[in-house]
């Protein structure tokens, strides 16, 4: 059985729990063991790099160091922000021995630079390559839009192997799940990110724009990879529906949930019952 290091990140223990449940479920179905990094700490997310550039590197550094010392050479970080912070730090440390040295002094742990961080899209693609497609027996037949948001499309040295302006990293997985990935205009538009509480108005404006585009494209659901995006599009969609800023409810699914459903797993096991926008109906429509 293949083993992969696993960094859930803080949101996957709370608001993004569906992502954790569905990633673990689909990994299990695909025969991949996810070994959680022991005693991992928060990556710092937006808050650290917003206020202290040393802290912004030191917190991910500790995580990388732990992973390396635990023999985990490849680590999956499903949260797009965690992925961006961890991989970004990994790249910077590789490029600057001075930075590495400084971080070693701050964190008091060694790190040789040998950990590879992958994101949820890369993980799903690798599962497909390893034969997951055979296990996707339930053809869902949905028309969806693939929403990459900011951190699964941009960051030149961080998101590699995909086109930042026309990302396609989710498409193979969506097709393997028997769904159609519709062309649309907001694949990499920002949802408002971390401003959910501190500048809610911006999140409502930006998320509404994404939902409008998804609806205009004729989507049954929006597929995303980031718990921040999911929260903004799902939890905050209630507000938009209440204020009649959007005509109706559009389900927001994690890519791992979509694949989990296609693999015949129960929606509750994947966390679909915890969404704010009812999503379990998507399966009944499937073949």
């Amino acid at each position, binding site marked *: 059985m293949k083993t992969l290091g696993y960094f859930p990140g803080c949101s996957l223990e709370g608001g993004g729990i569906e992502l954790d449940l569905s990633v673990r479920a689909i990994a299990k179905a695909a025969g991949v063991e996810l070994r959680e990094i022991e005693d991992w700490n928060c990556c710092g997310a937006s808050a650290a790099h917003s206020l202290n550039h040393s802290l912004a590197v030191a917190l991910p550094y500790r995580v990388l160091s732990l992973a390396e010392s635990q023999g985990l050479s490849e680590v999956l970080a499903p949260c797009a922000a965690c992925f961006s912070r961890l991989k970004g730090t990994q790249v910077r440390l590789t490029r600057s021995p001075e930075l590495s040295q400084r971080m070693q002094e701050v964190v008091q742990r060694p790190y040789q630079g040998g950990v590879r961080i992958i994101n949820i899209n890369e993980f799903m693609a690798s599962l497909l390559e390893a034969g997951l497609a055979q296990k996707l027996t339930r053809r869902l037949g949905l028309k969806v839009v693939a929403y990459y948001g900011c951190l699964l499309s941009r960051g030149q040295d961080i998101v590699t192997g995909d*086109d*930042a*302006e*026309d990302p396609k990293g989710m498409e193979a997985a969506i097709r393997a799940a028997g769904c159609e990935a519709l062309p649309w*205009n907001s694949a990499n538009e920002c949802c408002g990110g971390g401003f959910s509480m501190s500048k809610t108005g911006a999140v409502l404006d930006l998320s509404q724009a994404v939902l409008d585009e998804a609806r*205009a*494209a004729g989507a049954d659901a929006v597929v995303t990879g980031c718990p921040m995006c999911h929260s903004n599009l799902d939890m905050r969609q209630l507000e938009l529906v209440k204020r009649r800023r959007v005509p109706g409810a559009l389900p927001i699914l994690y890519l791992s949930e979509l694949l989990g459903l296609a693999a015949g797993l129960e929606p509750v096991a994947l966390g679909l019952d915890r969404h704010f926008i009812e999503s379990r109906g998507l399966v009944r429509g499937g073949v």
Partner: protein
Amino acid sequence: MARIGVFICHCGENIGRTVDCAAVSAAAAKMPGVVVGVDYKYMCSDPGQQMIRKAIIEQKLTGVVVGACSPRMHERTFRAAAAEAGLNPYLLEMANLREHCSWVHSNQAEATQKAIDLVRVMVAKVRRDRALRPIRVPVEPTALVVGGGIAGIQAALDIAAGGKKVVLVESGPSIGGHMARLSETFPTLDCSQCILTPRMVEAASHPNITLMTYSEVASVEGFVGNFTVTIRRKARYVDPAKCTGCGDCFNKCPIKKIPNKFDAGLGQRRAIYVPFPQAVPNKPVIDAAHCTMLQKGKCGLCAKVCPRGAIDYQDQDRLEKVKVGAVVLATGFQLWDHAAYGEYGGGRLRDVIDGFAFERLASASGPTGGLIKRPSDGKEPQTVVFLQCCGSRDDKVGKKYCSKICCMYTAKHAMLYRHKVHEGRAVVFYMDVRAAGKGYEEFVRRAIEADGAEYVRGRVSRITRRRDGKLVVRGADTLAGRPVTIEADLVVLADAVVPRPGSEKLAQLFGVGYDQDGFYSEAHPKLRPVETAAAGVFLAGACQAPKDIPETVSQASAAAAKVLGLFAKPELEREPVIARVNRTTCAHCRACISACPYGAAKDFDIVDRAGKILRAVADVNEGLCQGCGTCASVCRSHSVDLDGFTDEQIHAELNAL
């Protein structure tokens, strides 16, 4: 027995203030082989030159050293004076006591000693100088002009007007180039074809000009004054001698929907076609890739309807050799492909077009008869957004340089659109408006003030197509400090100007250099803008760098002037400071042939009287050799030497120090 004369110039105060010229000439007089040592205020003046001439004759000098300014200033002057006195000019050398001595030192004693040393070095050299004769190379007084756009046409007309013959080669079926595609030209808004077509006709009918359209340069041999160029005459499948241009063939051709390159893909042509109605020559060609007769042997309609029997399906490419003395490269430019900008639709949005496409929309003889229409649905756009600098001034995607012409043609496009759609809105997103030519600034102000174009300073971040067909353009107004979103019906991108495909290969055929962007390299960016490193090959137009029509025409006339200068004498005289191979010691290792940057070193067979090859050696083409000395330095057997700078001379100079 050497009898050297040394003449030291004070150059007024330039040398005299720092170097004790009298001391130098006195010291020189005592050097071995020197019989005369004098100094004078201004050696280059008439009396100064007279001194030299007098000394040569009276003292029977065998060589002269003039200690003065840089040879780049007056070597020619002094050598001419020597020649007048009957001394071979290559037996006169200059010691640079100004740029190399008085102008870079301040200590008098040290400068004077250095001047004496410099003179001693040159005396040692002159003693080993040999009399040299200038090399004479015959000149074929025919020019080749590659490229039939306005640059090539102008150059050809000017050379022809100077009484010399021209072969004008154009790869397309007709001459005219991009200028034939334009609607109106800035800053006068002249109808482009109206001012161009008279020249096209003149070029075609001038007795001194031979037009070779639908042809390309295949290979090049030779050197300045004596090029042999092989031209591939592509198969037209139509005999131009029989064809009258009546058009029956293309009116009947059943293959109708081939996107027309002339119209930037907005219009269509047939498999047998003339690229535009005003084509010169007005004779069609068959596009073999799309012709069912040539591909599958079916149809043959054009041959059936042609009243003159001019169609010839058996036609083949032919190679034709021409002998020319000079070449003008005028291959022009094309627009960069904006598909590289994913944020602008990646080339997939039909209503996001480039500048040439807009020209064809605006042109009265274009695919829409001069009406501005959206390519997607044919509707008239009510809001048109123009983006400047698309692919230019960009380190990330596209080119670093400024493409020069786009600010002007965009202002023109905005004006033309506003003239045609009176209630329409024209918005131009710019970074800097570059309008430096005559009447250009006034033209742009007219676009803004008289014709209502809206200029917003800021680049556009993204263009998306909404379901209702509108293009959402997200730009910025940097001066007001805010983002600006425009809902457009049509977007025109001012794509970067880049050289044409195949231009690099052509440059290599002629030995012309090009930069990292593929533009041809001029010999000197300031003072020699139409010459290249290859003697006899000149440049005109946008193939050298982006430029507008007035500059192109000027450059073309300049290139023509250079050609006519070259042709003014039946023979070219070249400096005899060139390499020479000692055939006895040459082992034919070919190191010099590989090393020569000018392709002047070549293989040479030594034959006996019966013509049997005895052995091969290296040899130097006197017409191409530039006297750089690279061959001499790589030759392992010391078989190559440089006349005027022999190994012996250089060693003597070093020893004299």
